[in-house]
């Protein structure tokens, strides 16, 4: 195995050996169960029925395990996922610098660029694992509760209202998970960037979250509608368009190009900052 892969494996060992990682995963499971409970309360259920039936579709067909999984996935990721990713990514460099392990590590003939690249890749991997975990467990929970059927997706902010036939629901849902993860990587990358700066790990996480939440809030202000393409959260929701009957492929490519560009900018900026830092 090339040395880089060994080092990367150890980055993952460091990340996945922490108790906090699993406490986080357990928190997500609890959140999913709680959301499932909320979605099955009479009023939210009646609202679903109203919307689906108003559009001429059968409630029993589209209020399925896939629809519930989709709701759980969306809300869990938005509410808890971004918080957790910011927390983990904010820790990546800053915590090692604060604890002194980075000094121990940099006694060795390894370049700082390689260290940042390893951490960055670990952050990306973690994001995919986390979103994958949420997606799959949400699917299991949804299917266990309601069984399969059609998939109903509604995201008014992004202009998405879609009803996916039962035979395409599972495939699209499974395709949506990596796309959502790819979007969420941007939050991890922002966390990584601030983690490279001269600040405490908690500060890096708070700054990352502040940016995402402010961006989201500003996007909802009507006066800023004309500058929607400049908001990060506009592009973060690109994944949801995959569920439309005719996905706007070009727009999605544009959104993901924007996000990947932002991710790489975070990597380059973070590395440049870390390269200049004195470690004491």
């Amino acid at each position, binding site marked *: 195995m090339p040395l880089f892969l060994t080092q990367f494996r150890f980055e993952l060992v460091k990340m996945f*050996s922490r108790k906090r990682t699993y406490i986080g995963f357990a928190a997500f499971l609890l959140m999913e169960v709680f959301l499932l409970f909320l979605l099955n309360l009479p009023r939210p259920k009646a609202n679903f029925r109203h919307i689906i039936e108003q559009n001429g579709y059968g409630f029993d067909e589209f209020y399925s395990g896939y629809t519930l999984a989709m709701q759980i996935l969306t809300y869990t990721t938005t509410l808890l996922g971004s918080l957790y990713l910011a927390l983990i990514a904010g820790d990546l460099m800053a915590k090692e610098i604060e604890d*002194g392990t980075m*000094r121990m590590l*940099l*006694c*060795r003939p*390894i370049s700082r660029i390689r260290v940042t690249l390893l951490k960055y890749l670990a952050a990306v991997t973690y994001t995919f694992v986390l979103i994958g975990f949420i997606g799959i467990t949400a699917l299991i929970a949804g299917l266990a509760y309601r069984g399969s059927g059609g998939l109903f997706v509604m995201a008014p902010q992004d202009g998405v209202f879609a009803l996916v036939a039962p035979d395409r629901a599972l495939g699209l849902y499974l395709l949506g998970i990596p796309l959502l993860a790819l979007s969420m990587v941007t939050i991890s990358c922002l966390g990584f960037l601030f983690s490279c700066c001269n600040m405490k790990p908690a500060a890096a996480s708070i700054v990352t979250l502040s940016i995402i939440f402010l961006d989201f809030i500003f996007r909802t202000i009507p006066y800023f509608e004309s500058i929607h393409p400049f908001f990060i959260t506009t592009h973060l929701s690109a994944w949801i368009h995959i569920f439309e009957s005719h996905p706007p492929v070009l727009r999605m490519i544009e959104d993901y190009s924007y996000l990947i560009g932002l991710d790489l900018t975070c990597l380059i900026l973070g590395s440049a900052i870390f390269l*200049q830092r*004195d470690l004491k």
Partner: protein
Amino acid sequence: MIHLERLSKTFGARPALHELTLDIPQGQIFGLLGHNGAGKSTTFGMILGQVFPTSGAAFIRGISVQQHRLRALQGVGAIFETPAFYDYLSGWTNLCIFTSYTRRVPESELREAVRFVGLESRINDPVRVYSHGMRQRLALAQALLPRPDLVLLDEPAEGLDPEGIHEMRHLILRLNRQHGMTVILSSHLLSEVEQVCDRIAVLNQGRMIFEGKWTELMGDSLRYRLDAEPWDAAAALVAARPEWKLSPEKIVTAGPGHDIADLVSGLVQSGIKVRAVEPLKQNLEEIYLNLVGGAKSTPSAT
């Protein structure tokens, strides 16, 4: 092995190190002595390429650390005052992780390092349950992997109990004597440095105020109790020589590079009976404090 060329570092407006020039030959145990904030850790940081010098350069085996850090750090091991580990992982996993940043190390080599520091029975325990002494030993084990020819030890005895200090001293001497490693040791524990180091440099407020052998440092201030007859004649003769100082307690202090034998011979040639010359070993702390105190009054000293 190591050459520091007019190495300076300023943090903001605070100078941490001022034009340090130093040569450390291969195979020595070299001590870097100074109180907290004297610039020892900053010097280590610059040797390891972790702190960027404001001016000057550090070379290991003639390779510039600042320009070719990766090449310069091949064969270098280091430990810090408070060694940091991934506490939630075992000592063994920590060793595997740290060594992977240098090269792939065979398990036998890892086991040998663990045996060398005497951690065999606890190496699979999580580091969070280690005592301070065990952490220091683990730090030493990681510094020895893969086998370096230069080891930098920043306050290795800090926080250790007397038994731990003794063990650490023994390990350092073994590294040098049995494995031929060059060791650079920073400490503010004078007795510790005295017992293991061949040469020392004393730093004070970022400036080097002494560099040489211990004996040279001690020799600079050798004192003797003198008993001679007739005393008045002996005192007059000593007073006539500016390189010697005489106190009312009949203690003569030799200036740098002067031998007491010359003084005794002068006294005898003048017909004075020398009854006793008793060397008075000056307290180590006293020498150090005199040195540091002297440097404070002469800030231009480097």
